[in-house]
């Protein structure tokens, strides 16, 4: 009964004639962090989109704690325990910071239309309780974000936006969080802050695992245990960061065959 948290087998997706991801497979255990790197257009985000249920894979399987979730619609994948952020941050901009996190709790709250209309006291109590938990979550992540919780999310600076996205993802109490290029558009200082944020989240939530797509080797170097390289939709190698760095196939993928063998 020690099924890995996430089991991906031979995952393939075709868009017309284009094979965007081809037979990618990996296991991710509890409490693990795996970084996924690869050149632009390698199929990393497509892989995320399949795992989170946005795309339906052409072939292959995805299992979460032994349960098959292949082809499940995105909202049910979220309920099952996989949360994610997006490469270009997709916050609910016109809503408050707090609203964003409360919406993240959608999967863990219940009340529907009839509750809201006929049992308003109960629905409101549930929402208020969710808001309190959301505020605590924000505070644990960043005092600054907490102080701005009643402001519009669209007004936040870039680093805080990314942080809020992580808070929103955490709000659903996931077992796996997928971060799609969390450091994009950040300078080194912001990236360092992001790294310590991720470390803090991990320390506070034993059992939570991360999949991180990243270009910034600074961040990858901070979580070096497992790194997977994808190129042209295929998995090139999976090892620790030190080994991946020197692997000739990886250097070819990034720099070209000629540059490596010159």
């Amino acid at each position, binding site marked *: 009964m020690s099924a890995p948290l996430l089991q991906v087998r031979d995952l393939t997706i075709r868009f017309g004639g284009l094979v965007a991801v081809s037979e990618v497979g990996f296991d991710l255990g509890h409490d693990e962090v795996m970084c996924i790197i690869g050149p632009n257009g390698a199929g990393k985000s497509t892989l995320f989109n399949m795992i*989170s*249920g*946005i795309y339906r894979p052409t072939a292959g399987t995805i299992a979460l704690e032994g349960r098959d979730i292949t082809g499940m*619609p*995105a*909202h*049910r994948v*979220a*309920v099952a325990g996989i*949360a*994610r952020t*997006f490469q270009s941050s*997709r*916050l*609910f*901009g*016109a*809503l*408050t910071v*707090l*609203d964003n996190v*409360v*919406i*993240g709790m*959608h*999967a863990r*709250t*219940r*009340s*529907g*239309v009839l*509750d*809201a*209309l006929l049992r*308003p006291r109960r*629905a*409101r109590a*549930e*929402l*208020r*309780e*969710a*808001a*309190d938990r*959301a*505020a*605590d979550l924000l*505070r644990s992540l960043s005092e600054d974000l907490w102080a*701005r*919780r*009643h*402001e*519009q999310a669209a007004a936040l600076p870039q680093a805080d936006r990314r942080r809020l996205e992580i808070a*929103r993802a955490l709000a*659903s109490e996931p077992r796996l969080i997928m971060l799609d290029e969390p450091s994009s558009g950040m300078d080194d200082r912001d990236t360092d802050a992001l790294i310590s944020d991720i470390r803090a989240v991990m320390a506070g939530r034993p059992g939570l695992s991360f999949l991180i797509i990243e270009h910034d080797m600074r961040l990858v170097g901070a979580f070096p245990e497992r790194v997977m390289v994808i190129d042209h939709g295929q998995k090139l190698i999976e090892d620790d960061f030190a080994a991946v760095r020197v692997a000739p196939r990886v250097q070819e993928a990034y720099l070209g065959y000629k540059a490596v063998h010159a």
Partner: protein
Amino acid sequence: MNPETATPRAPGAPAAAARGGRLPDHLIVAAIELVGAWLLAVFLLSRTTWLIVLVLALFGAALVVMRLRPAIEERIVAAFGRARITALVLGGAIVLAYPFLLGGNSYAIHILIIGQLYAVLALALNFQLGSANIPNFATGASYGIGAYTSALLAVTFGVSFWLTLPAAAAVATFFGFVIGFPSMRTRDTYLALVTIAFAVVVHQLMNNFEWTGGPNGLVGIPAPSLFGHSFNSPIEIFGYRAPGQANFYYLAVALMVLSIVSARRLHDSRVGLAWNALREDELAARCQGINVVWFKMLAFGVDAFLAAFAGTVYAFYVGYISPDNFTFLVSVTIMTMVIVGGMDNAFGVIVGAFLLTMLPEKLRVFNDYRLLFVSALVILFLILRPQGLFPQRLRVYGGRK
């Protein structure tokens, strides 16, 4: 008007609170409600063009002031939030006494009834257009389905008005879901096209079926009665008389209160948040576990439900309905009311509905040009307040203040 959702943004908050000491909340609330009611009465009763234009100018000036000095608006909203009981009691008293205050002018009461029915329709559409950004052009069709269902039940089977209300709502909600389901495969412009098609089809069916009376419509819808009091007979209290329309005025008030309460409760709930989430970013909403298809269909259902209530009251009020009451243009009008009033703001939507019902009526002096004037005024108001007269406000609740 929407105390729980209304709050100043953080920087404005201390300033507004500090100024709170000078003018008591209750005074602000009472002054606004009384002056508002008085100006509305002047507007409704006046036959003098310059007086009508003056009231409109005052309304416009108030909007300009609020645009230039947002602190004033925040102060007013805060006052309504704190003096909530005063606002409700005084507002309720004014609404109840209004037909008598209008001196039994049945034309003015008629405009108010139609205004309230449109307010209900606009609130219904607001669940979709305002909360969830679903461009539904079929609210007029749901309105018609409600009206026809209840009228047919009453005329053919002699069912009482009070029983036709839930029946009409059930039928319209069913059709709401029916149209909601196929539209889930489409979005934005295409979704709008599907709903337009639905509205046109419903209108054509009403026109062509035998049992709907075809283009002649349905006549002889009996007036409802409550505890033996027919809605056709005038109301008399302590020697004050109000014409028969007042009965329907109170019925429309009840319906509008129901709609406002529903709107408030849904807006300040998990459902309202989910709708807002799919308005902001559908893909991100899905990844938060929101079943987008289900919540869109819910929005269609709620819209149709309330629209059917409005349709039923309309049918029994006028006593005669024909397909021309429920054309595609009605849906467009409702949509304009939501956009002009302010999306996702119940108070704004109601103001928009009243404004767009009353303007064409009161600007009849301009004869053929009146619609031109109405449009020009609407554009002017939108220049003053581009987000609608009363734009959506940030929610504030809990979150360990």
